[in-house]
């Protein structure tokens, strides 16, 4: 495995996917605003797509199926982003804040 031959190896893509997943989980736990958490969840979805595409390129018999699955992930991510943004706007209209520490009405 040479440094300039990394793009031909499956493990490179899997490690990049794991890195994106780790960043996404870290952001989900540590961000304080809803929009920051939404951005981090998009990173997690990108990590899943990278893994699907990597296995699709290197191990799968039919190279179209992984691409179609990635396209479905993109559609779900777009729908999720639209719903999440409208929820953020509704929360902001009611609370004048997007801080997760302020939205604690059900906190006992």
């Amino acid at each position, binding site marked *: 495995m*040479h440094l300039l031959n990394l793009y031909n190896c499956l493990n490179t893509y899997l490690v990049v996917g794991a890195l994106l997943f780790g960043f996404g989980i870290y952001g989900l736990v*540590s961000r*304080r605003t809803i929009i920051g958490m939404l951005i981090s969840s998009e990173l997690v979805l990108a990590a899943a*797509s990278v893994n699907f595409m990597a296995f699709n390129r290197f191990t799968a018999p039919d190279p179209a199926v992984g*691409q179609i699955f990635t396209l*479905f992930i993109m559609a779900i991510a*777009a729908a999720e*982003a639209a719903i999440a943004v409208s929820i953020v706007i509704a929360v902001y209209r009611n609370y004048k804040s997007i801080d997760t*520490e302020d939205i604690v009405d059900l906190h006992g």
Partner: protein
Amino acid sequence: MQEFICQTSANPSLFSAEGFVGLIFLVTIGLIVAGALVATCARRLVRSVAGLALCFTGVAGMYYFLLAPFVAMMQMLIYVGAVAILIAFAIMMATPEEGDLPGRRISALAGPLGFATGALLFAALTVLAIRTPWQVFPREGSADMKHIGTVLLTSHSMVFELISIVLLIAIIGALVLARRGRN
């Protein structure tokens, strides 16, 4: 060779065509890492969205290296062009006047524990990816656009229809949620 699935085990020089392609791939990985770092660690949300767009651009380049130029184009169109812009709109519409939110979570442990969780998951998944002997199946189909379209509308047509219903419901739900409370 069973543990490291590589198409070729060549050792190209930096000034050959393959070496230059490898250099571009390293730049792509750098884009992804830098974008993810900015997206998770930036204090201001606008910079975070810019980092997210950078990271998605790097992922699109990686799809190009995975021999899927159509998915790379869709990544640029949907993620960079639509999702990042949508989040930027949300930041413009729903952020308090001061813009950034100083301070951290009330529990001081959230940052370090989150970092520990993310690092642990990254390490575990990396070890799992490298240690596992992945099984390689022989190629059957081609990866061109015509074959993708045929498979999408024949063996995956049910999922295709369902995803359009999901998108329709998402549009209606977003409208209902965002319009409620406005008089």
